[in-house]
């Protein structure tokens, strides 16, 4: 339970079907909980939707969060849902401003758990500088969901100097990774049935909008492409980039940062860190001329000390990602045929 925002007095200690009925219980849950906690000028109007102005070019993104377990080291489904959509907008070169928030709750969810998730949402919104302006709550019968699913949709204005487009990627561009791989996926897997092992690894869920905007301020159109390697990991993102740009990607294993403990867990579980999910990480494809300065700036960011140039775009082997192994051999890095791990975010 969160000590800073104590749970308000409610008539029930678990969610029941009445909380999604649209009647008194829904109203009690929203008034005492969501509206009070997440309050802002637009949300306070409690209208069917939010009405606002936005200037200039606008980006919009949506994502649904079904992670299991809902609480994990370093976060929970609440802050994941805020950071995830904020970061998807950041990858468009946009600063998230307003978010919608939709819940599908399963009958029987503990009110204390729901409250802790709401408090995390509030904290994550403050950290990212975004507001929840509209939302929805539905409840499904026990067994028809899995505690809680969250959807967020975000909207924000695109940075005036941003021109993020796969068509801008050209041979010679450098590929920069903002930090160490695989923390979120390994954190989730360490909680799963049959896989419990002791670890101090925590999820890297965090907002990326501020650092991305600062980088855009300085490097503008020299940043050709951005993407966050969430599900499917770095390997999947690089394959998507190679396919969209119709160019090849060369990476070097020794330059790809992975923390020792994460690496050890991957070895033990037979996972390749290249395919494991991340949450607070991004890949930037930048003009070679600014790559050094870009990396230096990124390394000064509080989460950027392990940022690294991991490879470059090439005319050779179009649509393929090739990795030079630690021992100097070369191999293909393909897309995975299926999920390495389901319900990771």
């Amino acid at each position, binding site marked *: 339970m969160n000590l800073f925002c104590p749970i308000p007095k409610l008539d029930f200690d678990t969610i029941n079907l009445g909380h999604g009925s649209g009647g008194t219980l829904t109203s009690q849950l929203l008034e005492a909980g969501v509206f009070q906690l997440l309050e802002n000028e637009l949300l306070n109007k409690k209208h069917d939707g939010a009405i606002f102005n936005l200037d200039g070019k606008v980006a919009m993104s949506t994502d649904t969060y079904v992670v299991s377990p809902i609480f994990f080291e370093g976060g929970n489904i609440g802050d994941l849902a805020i950071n995830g959509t904020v970061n998807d907008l950041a990858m468009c070169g946009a600063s998230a401003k307003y978010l919608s928030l939709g819940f599908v709750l399963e009958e029987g969810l503990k009110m204390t758990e729901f409250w802790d998730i709401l408090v995390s949402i509030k904290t994550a919104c403050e950290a990212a500088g975004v507001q929840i302006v509209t939302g929805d709550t539905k409840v499904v019968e026990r067994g028809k969901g899995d505690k809680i699913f969250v959807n967020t949709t975000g909207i924000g204005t695109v940075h005036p100097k941003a021109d993020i487009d796969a068509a801008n990627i050209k041979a010679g561009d450098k590929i920069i990774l903002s930090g160490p791989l695989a923390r979120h996926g390994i954190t989730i897997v360490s909680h799963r049935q049959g896989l419990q092992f002791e670890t101090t690894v925590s999820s890297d869920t965090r907002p990326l909008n501020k650092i991305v905007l600062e980088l855009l301020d300085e490097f503008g159109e020299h940043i050709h492409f951005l993407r966050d390697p969430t599900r499917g990991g770095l390997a999947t993102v690089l394959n998507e980039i190679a396919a969209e740009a119709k160019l090849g990607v060369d990476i070097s294993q020794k330059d790809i940062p992975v923390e020792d403990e994460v*690496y050890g867990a991957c070895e033990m579980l037979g996972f390749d860190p290249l395919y494991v999910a991340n949450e607070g990480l991004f890949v930037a494809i930048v003009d070679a001329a600014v790559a050094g300065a870009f990396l230096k700036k990124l390394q000064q960011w509080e989460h950027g000390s392990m940022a690294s140039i991991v490879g470059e775009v090439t005319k050779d082997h179009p649509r393929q990602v090739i990795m030079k*192994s630690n021992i100097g*051999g070369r191999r293909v890095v393909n897309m995975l045929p299926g999920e390495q791990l389901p319900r990771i975010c």
Partner: protein
Amino acid sequence: MKYVSEFRSPEVVDALLKEIRETVKGNWNIMEVCGGQTHSLVKNGILNMLPSNVQMVHGPGCPVCVTPVNLIDKAVHLAMDHNVILCSYGDMIRVPGSGMSLLEAKSKGADVRILYSPLEAVKIAKENPDREVVFFAVGFETTAPANALSVIHAFKEGVKNYSILTSHVLVPPAMEAIMSDAACKVDAFLGAGHVCAIMGIGEYYPIVEKYKIPIVVTGFEPVDLLEGILMTVKQLEKGEYKLENQYTRVVETGGNKNAVKTIDEIFEVTDREWRGIGEIPRSGYGVKEQYSAYDAVRKFKIDIAESHEDLTCLSGDVMKGKIKPDQCPNFGTKCTPVQPLGAPMVSSEGACAAYYNFHMATVLEGIGH
């Protein structure tokens, strides 16, 4: 990481490659028996670093690949028609059966769970006393101790709703089957290091003598593999045939006696069918009579129609080292990891999957991409 990084050292790898190049004169086909070794060779790019007259031939040591299609059909049948909780290592669930895979069964409502340890399945059985829990116990000698231990645990704790669907296979009879094939072109073996960690190395002396073939028990890291290849090449160039142990940091001559004792308590050696290869006498483990209550085949009296293989799949020839994965006409066209014809394209230890996913030659020739 201690005990790993030393065995991935680029400097040591360079030195070993140099020595291999200086030593080798003839043309040699060396079979690495284990699928884990195949993947390490391909993922680290070693196949492209070796001199062209040292050809690695990929062996049958992928347990998922050699599990008979009939057993997958039995697992699907148990999950679909007997309402059991079917627990399995992750690799097995995408392998095609004659009707469907376990993954397809799961999507049709069967309770299929992916576990890392059979002891977890015993725990699930205790938590679900009203349901039958079956663990799909596949593997070579390496996974046999843990699978046997799960039966011992269930027996000691009086867990009666637990059983195993077993398809254990043994490495030495498979090596003999490969050598006795008239078309065999294998000049030497890299033995499977982890199998020997359990069983010791004694079983391989008779094979060395009978077929006059070098066997070097080898580990899985780049330095292990290259050192094993170097030791093998040295023997071949001198015309020697000996059993040697490269993987001394893990493999003791006598193996792991506790593990062997655990296996012997539950299992006995039986004839086994190998997918793609056929029946090999005395090449697997079956559950002993006194533990038959824990043998899913006997417990559920499974009676299903004869299973049929897709005959266009040449995985048998791949696993016997007769062809390389990319020499199969279906490779990357009719057979991919998403739509596999056979198990070696699915398993994380399968040679076809290794070639499809990682091998440079596949990309350079543009096959399947």
